[in-house]
């Protein structure tokens, strides 16, 4: 009977989530341009994708995104929350609102806004020009070395607020007595953070890590809108590579293989996080 109740929801889930997943796996074993008849080629697509240096470049790009939009924001947010948790701040809900705001904006919009900021005649370069002089002005998104960190910072900007709010919500249910007790035992702020705050927000920390890690590994709209994966392949993520293969180059097989491999990478990443940040 209870299963009957979830049936309507499950049908939708199966139709729009499970079926596409299975179909993608099937496509990854085919040679197909999206239009002509499909030919089964076994593992060829995987061999092709794994031996393509661009795949590894895109994985490297992904890892940089993990650094910028998962590890750094989580580290920074932990620091901030560590400070906030032990004091009472007036107007906290206002700050929460402000921090969270960037996360509510679609990444595609964020990308376009930052394109303007990063432009040769954009605000950032205007500041640089005024402070350091013309020779330090850079076309950030058009520079093969700077484009990736520049986009990374956008990722940081976009996810930081989310992580802060997540972790802050975790601190709400830490009993204040614990801090008092720790202080009575002579704990300093650092000790307090590790014995009271951190254990108290473990669940939230884990969820933050999982959410930002998956976001970072599959980020697509940001590089598509900001740089089209360029210059060259400097900001091409696996998702973008997949999109290009499937929708533009008519290489559905290799594109699907990238999707499957990326999913495995995400699985492993998330499993790792779950292991590292155990609830107990």
């Amino acid at each position: 009977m209870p299963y009957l109740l979830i049936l309507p929801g499950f049908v939708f889930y199966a139709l729009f989530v499970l079926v596409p997943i299975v179909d993608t796996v099937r496509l990854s074993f085919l040679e197909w341009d999206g239009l002509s008849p499909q030919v089964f080629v076994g593992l060829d697509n995987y061999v092709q994708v794994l031996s393509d240096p661009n795949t590894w470049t895109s994985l490297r790009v992904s890892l940089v995104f993990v650094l910028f939009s998962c590890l750094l924001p989580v580290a920074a947010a932990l620091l901030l929350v560590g400070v906030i948790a032990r004091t009472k701040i007036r107007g906290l809900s206002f700050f929460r609102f402000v921090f969270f705001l960037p996360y509510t904006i679609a990444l595609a919009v964020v990308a376009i806004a930052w394109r303007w900021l990063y432009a040769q005649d954009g605000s950032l370069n205007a500041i640089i020009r005024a402070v350091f002089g013309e020779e330090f002005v850079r076309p950030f998104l058009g520079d093969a070395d700077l484009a990736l960190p520049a986009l990374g910072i956008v990722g940081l900007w976009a996810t930081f607020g989310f992580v802060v709010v997540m972790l802050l919500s975790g601190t709400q249910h830490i009993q204040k007595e614990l801090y008092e007790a720790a202080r009575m035992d002579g704990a300093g702020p650092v000790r307090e953070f590790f014995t009271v705050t951190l254990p108290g927000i473990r669940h939230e920390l884990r969820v933050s890590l999982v959410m930002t890690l998956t976001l970072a590994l599959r980020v697509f709209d940001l590089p598509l809108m900001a740089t089209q994966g360029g210059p060259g392949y400097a900001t091409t993520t696996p998702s973008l590579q997949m999109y290009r293969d499937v929708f533009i180059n008519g290489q559905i097989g290799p594109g699907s293989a990238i999707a499957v491999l990326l999913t495995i990478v995400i699985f492993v990443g998330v499993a790792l996080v779950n292991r590292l940040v155990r609830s107990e």
Partner: protein
Amino acid sequence: MLRHHRSARALTALAAAVTVGATGCAGTSSSGQPAAAPTAVGTSCDKYGDIKLTVGMSEAGETIANEFKKQVESFQQANPNVTVDLQIKDWASSANTIKLVMSGNNPPDVMQGNSGWAINGALWKAGLLLNLDAYAKAFGWNDKFHESALTVNKFTTDGKVLGEGSLVAVPPAIQYVGVFYNEAVLKKIGIDDVSSLDSKEAFLGALDKAKEAGVTPVMLGDSEKWPALHNLSLLNGWYVAPEQINNWALNREGSTYDDEGHLKASTDFRAWMQKGYFNSDALATSFTDATNRFGRGEAAFFVTGTWALGDVRKSLGDDAGFMLFPAGESGKHAAVGGYSLPFSISAKTKYPDCAAAFVDYVTASDEAVKAQIAAGRPSATKEGVNAQIDDPLLKQMVTEYQRLTSENGLFTWEDWPTPTMLTFQGSEAQRLLSGEITPKQYNEAVQQNWADYMETRS
């Protein structure tokens, strides 16, 4: 704690689902055979009653799009039973979606695709484009167009050869890449007589002068990864014979991109970036932004296709000029180009005669000849270059075109030979400009892409 563990797993699954699900909507397989040619065809929309004709349009430039809208209006007036549902996209987003759109259940009746393998070749092979041979006869296209305008839009029935076989698309206009200049800026840097720039040395001298004067010599906006390729193509024209380039673009055995001539061109291309002949933010600038910035007088030259003519004229007025890319070592002019994005008809259309009548109207009719002139380029018909032209910039462009063809200097777009060439060259060229790869590596990589595709075809 079990509960939390479960939620973590659910998160994992969700994350995975979102990723894998992304490709699950890539369309369905179709017959995989080029469609059979219709035999008995008509030339008007009358027999269908009140209908809606869906038309996809995807050319670069606001002026061209606006003139096209006017053509659609007057087509509707001439055919009161037809309502045209016009969908305009910019070229980059059209290229990304056209295969999905055309293979869907409800494709547009008329669509502006692209010659070559990446789009029209793939659509033709899959049987999604109508064979236009019978319409060519009915509308007299074979007489109205230059042979070359139709040849580049033909594919064989087995879908293996480009340039022979059945007609699958009809181009509206002539298009080639040349040099727009800003006369006011040139005067400011001490160049009064533009005709003196018609040699490689003089042109390079002008670039140096611009640079010394603190003016961007050549405006380039390549963030979409295609405009730089046209600059490189012109440099190829300095060192490689047009026939040789055509042979390569049309997949003729034994052709190569990895030779001395192409190497000189790639080396120049890289050097132009290093020397500051291009704006330093070229790779972060979109084509539209580059057009606007050139229109604001931020550069001396803008090397791009004639599709920018309308927009450049609008912003620069009388200061705008157009010339052929100066002749290289051979002393002959050469330029990449041919015809603009051609119109095709979906094999699934319910109104083939009406769709064909529309294509005829926007490409081959007398109205089309005038409309194309208004859009800033001659139509692809024989009448096109003879049309009455009042605009001096356009006159310049047409005169230059005739000079180019009289020297047999026109060669075709170099992204044609393989389905992935455009995106491949687009990224590799940016790496070349960034100094990530050497000119030699660029040429080798491009040739490798070509050779790999040749292998799959045999």
